[in-house]
């Protein structure tokens, strides 16, 4: 049997707008999430409640659990002295209850196990923890210049710094220069379903229902910590209520749940993270500050570009947001420098949040572009068109189908951009300033190796398709069946798809906008191999398993998705309140596999971008060290009333260099550039240039008349 690489597949089911196959279960409440599983094995669980640190840095001197243990229903209180020992403590985020060190406020310092959630919570309230607190540095402002360092690499494996040409000389010789400091606050992913797990240890296998974006990654990460073989961990995630990156990597609560289960062998343990605890324990987008300098010809063509990004990370585990990477490939220009520096703080561990890097980085770059357009007197759409590179500036490789200009032009036409007055403060409608803005969007085409799919012939012409992928609400369960149907050349109705379980073949994370493309490639490869092995009329029971280690067609090309976001905002002339009345996103993402679910991804991305533009801000108290806007009443995400006219469009295309389906990814690009488009529109409306998110009402009070 020779293993072949997946080949492009003619589309039949792919491209059809089909409803979510699990929509009915979800809206009727039948879908079971991580804390809702009840069967013989998981019935009658103990409930775990986390006690978290109230200092930002120091040591736990003593955990007094006597009052908690005296409470009826409380069974056990675990702390760093009596918790099961981890086999590995290399990852300090995940080394739960292994020593007395406190690295951030909100870290787990004890775990109460009780017969009811109420008793567990009350028990946690009664645990008294004594600390030896040490001085802590918790904000970028408090970090000294010497505290900033160059990480070895930044998130997603990007180089920390990249320099081409002579930026200083390019800037010095440029006819037009713009320069600005742009910032985005820390933001929390805030999925609807809080992080939760139900775990049971039977002495040889740990079974865990988890709210995760990657069941196999949870097993692979937790096994060495728990001193188990990966095969001793079974992780299931049949339904997940959103992740936005916060469930992409395992976090401390999952370790806590697993440890607790191992401490009470035979008894299931259920752990649900509260919304407040999510603000310390499940990752977040760190604050970013970008210094952008652009030098250009009088017509707006960029000569030199610098994007210097700084940010914070946690002292106990490094995460460096790749804020400046989009500036490496977005626009033409001979001289370019992009750098990243981070300061290690005594704060919770940051992690992935939808479009890490691109979201904050493109806010900075795309507002700077708007400022350049203004400085040159060039239309913002034209400016971007003028700065199209021939080849990818970062690698020198040719692009495969870079269609940013088409997105901008189609969007401009659909949005009515041609009628836009050039100058700000040009439109007043009653009590409101009105303005429009544009920004580009981009997201790299990632493809993750190592996905395995199994195809099984069943009775009556049905096919079982198994892969340990996770549908975190995106529609993966629906689109993978479409991909499998085309790859096997059968109807979608003949496919029985199984996902979300480490007992199924290994799959990579639902993240990086790469899930569908990477899993789908494995399914196509396995299906094609299955047909090669077993023909068109296979005997029931035969099966083929295929692993996609590479998809080499992409080698030597720069693969990115692109888009253009247009925004119309109204700013109240008396109160400064800003409302986004129209948002349009036009995207180039390769083949759209399911227009219904893809549209939801784009819309959700735009809404999350709007939310980040106007509201989202995790306010860290500089004295205490934790985020004080730690619930959804004080950490605002967009409400229904904030979302008005939303439109999404995409180019009809296929990209077979990216995947055999012709698709790239759709999960993240919608959030990219959206905040910049809104900020640019707010400037057009009022003349007020805001370079720091979010754009709150107080920034637009008493707008001065333009000179």
């Amino acid at each position, binding site marked *: 049997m020779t293993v072949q690489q997946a080949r492009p597949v003619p589309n039949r089911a792919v491209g059809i707008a089909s409803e979510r196959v699990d929509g009915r279960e979800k809206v009727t409440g039948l879908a079971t999430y991580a804390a809702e599983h009840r069967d013989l094995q998981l019935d009658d669980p103990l409930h775990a409640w986390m006690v978290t640190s109230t200092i930002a840095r120091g040591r736990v001197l003593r955990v007094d659990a006597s009052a908690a243990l005296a409470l009826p229903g409380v069974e056990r209180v675990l702390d760093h002295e009596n918790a099961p020992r981890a086999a590995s403590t290399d990852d300090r985020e995940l080394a739960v209850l292994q020593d007395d060190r406190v690295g951030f406020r909100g870290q787990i310092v004890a775990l109460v196990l009780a017969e009811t959630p109420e008793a567990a919570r009350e028990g946690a309230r009664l645990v008294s923890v004594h600390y030896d607190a040490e001085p802590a540095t918790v904000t970028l402002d408090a970090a000294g210049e010497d505290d900033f360092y160059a990480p070895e690499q930044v998130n997603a494996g990007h180089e920390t710094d990249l320099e081409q040409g002579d930026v200083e000389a390019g800037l010095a010789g440029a006819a037009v220069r713009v320069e600005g400091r742009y910032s985005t606050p820390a933001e929390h992913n805030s999925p609807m379903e809080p992080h939760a797990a139900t775990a049971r240890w039977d002495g040889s296998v740990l079974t865990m229902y988890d709210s995760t974006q990657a069941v196999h990654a949870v097993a692979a990460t937790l096994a060495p910590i728990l001193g188990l073989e990966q095969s001793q961990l079974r992780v299931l995630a049949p339904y997940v209520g959103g992740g936005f990156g916060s469930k992409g990597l395992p976090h401390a609560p999952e370790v806590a749940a697993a440890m607790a289960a191992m401490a009470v062998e035979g008894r299931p343990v259920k752990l649900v993270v509260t919304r407040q605890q999510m603000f310390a324990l499940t990752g977040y987008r760190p604050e970013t500050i970008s210094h952008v300098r652009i030098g250009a010809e009088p017509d707006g063509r960029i000569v030199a570009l610098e994007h210097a990004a700084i940010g914070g990370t946690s002292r106990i585990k490094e995460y460096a947001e790749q804020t400046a990477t989009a500036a490496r490939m977005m626009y033409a220009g001979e001289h370019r420098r992009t750098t990243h520096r981070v300061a290690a703080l005594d704060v919770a561990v940051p992690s992935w949040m939808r479009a890490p890097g691109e979201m904050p980085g493109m806010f900075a770059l795309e507002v700077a572009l708007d400022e350049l357009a203004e400085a040159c007197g060039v239309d913002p759409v034209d400016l971007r068109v003028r700065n199209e590179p021939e080849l990818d500036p970062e690698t020198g490789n040719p692009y495969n189908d870079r269609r940013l200009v088409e997105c901008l032009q189609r969007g401009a036409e659909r949005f009515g951009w041609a009628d836009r007055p050039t100058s700000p403060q040009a439109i007043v409608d009653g009590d409101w300033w009105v303005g429009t803005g544009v920004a580009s969007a981009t997201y790299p085409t990632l493809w993750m190796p190592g996905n395995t799919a199994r195809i099984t012939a069943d009775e009556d012409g049905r096919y079982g398709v198994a892969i340990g992928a996770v549908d975190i609400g995106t529609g993966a369960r629906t689109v993978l069946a479409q991909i499998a149907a085309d790859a096997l050349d059968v109807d979608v109705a003949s496919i029985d798809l199984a996902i979300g379980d480490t007992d199924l073949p290994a799959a990579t994370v639902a993240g990086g906008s790469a899930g569908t493309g990477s899993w789908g490639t494995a399914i196509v490869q396995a299906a094609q191999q299955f047909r090669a092995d077993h023909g068109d009329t296979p005997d029931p029971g035969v099966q083929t398993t295929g692993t996609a280690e590479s998809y080499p067609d992409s080698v030597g090309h720069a693969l990115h998705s692109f888009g253009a976001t247009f925004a119309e905002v109204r700013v109240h002339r008396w109160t400064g309140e800003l409302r986004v009345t129209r948002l349009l996103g036009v995207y180039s993402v390769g083949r759209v596999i399911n227009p219904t679910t893809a549209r939801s991804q784009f819309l959700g991305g735009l809404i999350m971008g709007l939310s980040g533009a106007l509201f989202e801000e995790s306010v860290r108290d500089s004295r205490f060290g934790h985020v004080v806007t730690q619930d959804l009443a004080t950490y605002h995400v967009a409400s229904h009333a*904030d979302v008005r006219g939303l439109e999404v469009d995409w180019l009809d295309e296929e990209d077979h260099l990216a995947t055999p389906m012709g698709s790239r990814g759709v999960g993240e690009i919608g959030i990219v550039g959206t905040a910049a488009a809104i900020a640019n529109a707010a400037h057009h409306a009022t003349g007020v240039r805001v370079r720091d998110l979010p754009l709150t*009402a107080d920034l637009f009070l008493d707008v001065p008349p333009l000179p």
Partner: protein
Amino acid sequence: MKELTYVRPTDARDAVARVSDDPHARFLGGGTNLVDHLKLGLLTPDVLVDVSRLPLDEVTRLDDGTLRIGTNVRNSDLAAHPVVRSSYPAVTRALLAGASGQIRNQATTGGNLLQRTRCVYFQDVTTPCNKREPGSGCSAIGGYGRYDAVLGASEACVATHPSDLAVALAALDAVVVVLGRDGERRVPMSDFHRLPGHHPETDTTLAHGELVTSVELPPESALTRASDYRKVRDRASYAFALVSVAAALELDGDVVRDVRIAWGGVAHRPWRAAAAEEALRGETYSEEAVRAAAELELAAAVTGPDNAYKIPMVRNATAYALRGLADRSSERTGATR
């Protein structure tokens, strides 16, 4: 959550007696704020006395025209009440500006007035808060201050009262009817909530065990009919006010015959802008005059870096709210301004 006893008396006097006799007993209304406090560990009562099903859920017009609103009238029902909508529009608009549809369906009139600040430090038992734990200190001072008070705050507390309804009731001179062990008493809205002073732990002038049984609005008038509520917030719904304005305006030609202005989001209580009203009453209406009157009221304001925006914001919002009322007045009378 701590274990507690739940009782549901069928008579208001029994409920009052039950709470009056026990310092660790609390009334439970719609539960939209209190239940959060139980979960967060802010409150650990031994007894909850559920008053939400007492038959105090009607809106009735008394012989003298007073509109009596039973304490258990739900926010949604009160907002939709035809008399309230037509004769006291500020009340309807304030209610609809608050919370979410689900919460308004559950929340009661009395409970709305008795909800507590959403100051992030008050709601976080791991940080000092004089309101939650007298003498522990105020974490909001020197901390996150975007929602902090600018008027009437003290060194002990800079929290704001979160209710929208209370601001409208303050503007309209409502009276809160309270039942205590010694019988009923009537408390004008202006005396119902208090400033923090040295005792921020106490939000109102109610004694422990006193139960709000109804709220009375004065007979409708040209002034109550020409009332409005304007709430300013970053998020278009489901957000507490940055600032808010309840206003009523009666013009005689260009002259201000009567005016009411109350502010939300600026103080520990609904802030009746009496000095601003006094400055406007009998004077010729103009936007400039309204701004000047607001400035006068704000002369004593104290701000920090996070909440200094509230001064221009409440001034502008006041000018905006009164301008809307003046325009409507002009439309009715055909006057031109």
